[in-house]
């Protein structure tokens, strides 16, 4: 792009923020030009979210200056920022649960008409404005949040891990709508841990490391590696190579499965699901958003009971009434949502040790020494940055995620149910988690892994089952679980069909009219819509092959 520095639309310099002892941001800077989509990248704990919060007045910086269109200004509150043209879609949906959508719009002075326009652009054309936010699925909330932001016609739109929890078709819409803004006089700041989206969407990228801006990169075909190196800095070297998956060990036919599901249904979204999970294997679960995988994991983890069907653990049939029963049977669960899994005000130690004390049998005196030992081991194994460790809420998202897993690793896990454990965390941490899962399997544990990041299947899983419309529609061996075929399976399409959304995604990257229909046509008529997050990975993958 043009070397001579054009007028910056938004320029933040020397931003710093410390929380107690921890430095979230030290001298971070960010310059955004009019009409560009600007990526904000960084490992977990780099300070991305915090920076965005500062730019929109949600957090007040300790130091630094923010200038919009050359004029310096201090932003006191999100409302003020919005009036000044700085609007952010935060990571956590910021709609008010007990108000309906219309009220939510009113409270942000959002023009309803243009909101309607944007929300249908984004794929929810007949959203009912009178429904309570509390009752809407997360994905819809994210989209509504974005539509509301767009309807406020921001100069600078900031998206913090916007696509992290979105189904494929919605992700496509978001990327496409955002892409369309290029070249205008407003710009977008885009935070994501998915390089592929960055490559598809962004013009330039600012990279944060440990709260500091370490580089600004023009996003081009080859810039990925550069960016990763910047993000990880010296650590880059230590990245473990993608775990070597040994050829699936030949299993005697009569080998007893660790956990088997027999015709499990929940009565609503899950139908007749049966599979075996063997010791020493990582079994992947692939599904578009809302195909019943949540219900399946809830049942396996003992959070809810199956309507019909049965579970068998180590050959003995079980009926879980409560997660405690599952844990008793050695079946443990790592939810995707940290807020569900962690006691934010308590220490890393207490969080990891929680399962030790849960049962009535363990209500008596604790063996502090033994506990410390186990916990420290777990912290070491997962390389948790516990600087801010006496209150988990002060850890960064990535480190919080590690704590949720450490809890079970510490107890010596037999059967591990992981629901999208790498959601919204950085490459390095992801790698660590892959390796960990493999090691657990090697150690004889059985791992069931739902992932929304399809390439993880090939990296980590011995085999994968694909769920669609609440039924298992395919089983794929890990080796040949390449993304296109997984995606086809996930959409329940015959191998030869193209996936229309993918076609759209690169047929007209700048969003030609009509793309909406094609994209919609892609979703299966009767299956609940939604899609594989990261489906966006596919197109550019193929783009290089045959530019349409």
């Amino acid at each position: 792009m043009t070397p001579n520095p054009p007028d910056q639309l938004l320029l933040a310099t020397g931003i710093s923020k410390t929380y107690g002892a921890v430095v979230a941001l030290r001298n971070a800077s960010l310059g955004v030009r009019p009409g560009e989509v600007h990526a904000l990248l960084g490992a977990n704990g780099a300070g991305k979210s915090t920076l965005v919060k500062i730019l929109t007045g949600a957090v007040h910086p300790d130091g630094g200056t923010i200038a919009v269109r050359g004029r310096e200004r201090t932003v006191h509150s999100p409302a003020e920022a919005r009036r000044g043209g700085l609007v952010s879609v935060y990571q956590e949906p910021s709609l008010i649960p007990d108000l309906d959508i219309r009220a939510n719009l009113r409270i942000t002075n959002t023009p309803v008409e243009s909101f309607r326009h944007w929300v249908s652009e984004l794929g929810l054309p007949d959203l009912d404005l009178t429904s309570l936010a509390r009752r809407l699925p997360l994905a819809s909330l994210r989209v509504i949040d974005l539509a509301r932001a767009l309807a406020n016609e921001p100069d600078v739109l900031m998206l913090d891990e916007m696509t992290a929890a979105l189904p494929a078709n919605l992700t496509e819409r978001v990327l496409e709508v955002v892409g369309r803004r290029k070249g205008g006089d407003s710009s977008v700041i885009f935070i994501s841990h998915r390089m592929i989206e960055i490559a598809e969407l962004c013009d330039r990228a600012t990279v944060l490391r440990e709260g500091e801006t370490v580089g600004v990169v023009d996003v081009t075909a080859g810039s990925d590696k550069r960016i990763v190196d910047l993000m990880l800095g010296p650590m880059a070297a230590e990245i473990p190579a993608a775990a070597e998956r040994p050829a699936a060990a030949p299993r005697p036919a009569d080998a007893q499965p660790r956990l088997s599901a027999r015709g499990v249904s929940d009565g609503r979204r899950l139908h007749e699901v049966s599979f075996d999970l063997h010791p020493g294997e990582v079994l992947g679960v692939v599904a578009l958003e809302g195909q019943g995988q949540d219900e399946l994991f809830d049942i396996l983890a003992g959070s809810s009971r199956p309507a019909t069907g049965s579970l068998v653990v180590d050959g003995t049939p079980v009926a879980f009434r409560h997660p405690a029963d599952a844990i008793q049977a050695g079946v443990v669960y790592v939810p995707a949502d940290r807020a569900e899994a962690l006691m934010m005000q308590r220490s890393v130690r207490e969080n990891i040790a929680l399962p030790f004390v849960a049962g009535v049998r363990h209500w008596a005196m604790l063996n502090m020494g033994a506990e410390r030992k186990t916990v420290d081991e777990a912290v070491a194994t997962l390389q948790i940055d516990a600087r801010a460790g006496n209150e988990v809420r002060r850890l960064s998202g990535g480190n919080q995620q590690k704590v949720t897993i450490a809890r079970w690793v510490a107890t010596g896990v037999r059967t591990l149910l992981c629901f999208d454990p790498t959601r919204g965390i950085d490459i390095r941490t992801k790698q660590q988690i892959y390796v960990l899962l493999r090691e657990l399997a090697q150690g004889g544990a059985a791992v069931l892994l739902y992932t929304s990041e399809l390439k993880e299947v090939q990296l980590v899983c011995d085999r994968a089952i694909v769920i669609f419309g609440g039924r298992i529609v395919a089983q794929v061996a890990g080796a040949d679980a390449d993304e296109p075929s997984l995606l086809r399976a996930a959409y329940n399409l015959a191998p030869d069909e193209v996936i229309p959304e993918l076609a759209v995604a690169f047929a007209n990257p700048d969003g030609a009219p009509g793309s909406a229909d094609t994209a919609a046509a892609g979703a299966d008529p009767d299956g609940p819509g939604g899609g594989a997050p990261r489906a966006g990975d596919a197109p550019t993958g193929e783009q290089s092959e045959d530019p349409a």
Partner: protein
Amino acid sequence: MSTTATLASRGRSLVGRRDVLRRNGWTFGLLGLLAVLLLFAKIVEPSYGVLAIQGLGTSVLPLAIAAVAQAVVVISGGIDLSIGSMMALTSVVAASAMYKQPDEFGIVVVIGVLALGLALGAVNGALVVTTKVPDIVVTLAMSFVWAGFALIVRPAPGGGASSWLMDLAVGPILVDWIPKATVVMLIVVAVVWIPIARSRLGLSFYALGSNALAAFRSGVPVGRTKWASYVVGGLFAALGGLALTASTGIGTPVPGPYTLESVAAVVLGGVSLAGGRGGVLGPMIAVVVLQMVRTDMTFMSIDTNLAIVAQGVILIGVVMFGSLLEIRRASR
């Protein structure tokens, strides 16, 4: 158009309808219960009639208004344990100021007392917002402070009330069956609350109570809104104090049992103590229900101590019923 949307929205419109029922269902239930209790009274005591209904209207007046005050604060995600004391203070001020004064002056006093209520609420709110001490603690402590001031104003009960004010609290209006007190109460509450509820402020109350962080990010001035909720609460507390003076004709410095009873009424009235949900009508009806329960027990000459027990059991029972509904809804 996309299937996500259709499905989602289909599901949603169903949900939507359930919401409508859900939002008012509890209030309807209370009205039903009230009808039953009234019928029961009529059966046990056939002479139960016009006078009793008018008495009912007067009896519930102070607590009903106190419940509204509490509801406003709770909806906004707070709680005010100083309502009883604020009522005592405003009531003694009113009674002392009106004592042996011409009726016209009474109007001035009423306005002054309402202003006082706003001021008391403003102090509570300012303390809650600026000190960041949990509102339960702040208002609990302030309940001592306001009660102290009440004792300074009037070491002993006494004073007087303008005749027109007392007239407002007793007797029928239009028809014998309509207690004037109830009509007055509904009008006053409507005049104060409806404009607020329709305004951006009312919306902010619910937003704040529902999720403070989301509210802040949506541009709700969190501090000011929380403060405002206490101010409005204070205003209603002052109205409650006036209701006390109106129905008794005097002011009593020792706070009545209104603080905790208002909390109970608010919960029985379908307002979530977590904030963000409910309205002011439910709590008012809940107060009438509580009063009728007492009346029915009196008619049945139930041992007065067992009546106290029953009061507790009913409080627990109704809320238990409510949370059972919640649990069942959640499990479905």
